């Protein structure tokens, strides 16, 4: 079965991103495919390369990046939600004349169309909310 995952809760404030990670790992272990993981609203903070949790806590952004590399996952961060919240890639930082950018290289900024396309091409879309 083809799954897509939507995450709207911020890591560490809500369980959403951590639960979505567990779910995604299980889905992949059972031999299903994940078409896309879409980070929306406060979920965009999972794409920050600057997140630095204490060493005895899980590093959620890093775990997503690792899972993506292992399974060639498409991690898409909603661009409108992200730039609003200060999650920028190099392009957006240049566009808005900011002197830094923090989107992890394993994530891509894109529009809501990517969420809808994921819904069209997947058998199931599972939302992890705040």
């Amino acid at each position, binding site marked *: 079965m083809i799954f897509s995952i*939507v995450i*709207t809760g911020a890591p560490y404030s809500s369980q959403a991103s951590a639960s979505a990670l567990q779910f995604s790992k299980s889905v992949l272990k059972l031999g299903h495919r994940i078409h896309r993981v879409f980070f*929306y*609203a*406060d979920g965009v903070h999972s794409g920050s390369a600057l997140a630095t949790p204490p060493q005895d806590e899980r590093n959620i952004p890093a775990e997503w990046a690792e899972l993506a590399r292992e399974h060639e996952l498409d991690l898409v961060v909603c661009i*409108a*939600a992200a730039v609003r919240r200060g999650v920028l890639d190099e392009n957006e930082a240049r566009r808005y004349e900011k002197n830094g950018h923090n989107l992890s290289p394993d994530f891509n900024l894109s*529009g*809501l*169309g990517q*969420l*809808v*396309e994921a*819904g*069209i*091409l*997947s058998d*199931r*879309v599972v*939302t992890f*909310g*705040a």
Partner: protein
Amino acid sequence: MSDSKKSFLIINRKAPYGSSAARDALDVALTISVFEQPLSLLFLDDGVLQLLPEHNAAAIGQKNLSANLAMLEMYDIDQLYVCSRALEQRGIRPSDIKLNITLLDQNGIATLIKQQDQVLSF
């Protein structure tokens, strides 16, 4: 984009302000309609408060959501379902809502959700 169509249901459970959920859901609804997919909206819990007319959002420095809701019709999004119990619990009469809505009881909600290919919850 694939040729195949999927039916989408967006479930709105949160009050119009206080979190970005209502606006986020609306943005997704408009995008689904641009992709010309069948779409229904379901309002549950505090989500029914989104449907009240004449929000004064400027008073709290927010953009007004009710203007966007009125836009739904322009986008041919006309399948609006509302939990009748949620209205009752909040003392809202169906006639208070100026949009064209369909009231559903708990069984009706279950049936609606069952009919959909994709359900997105906000």
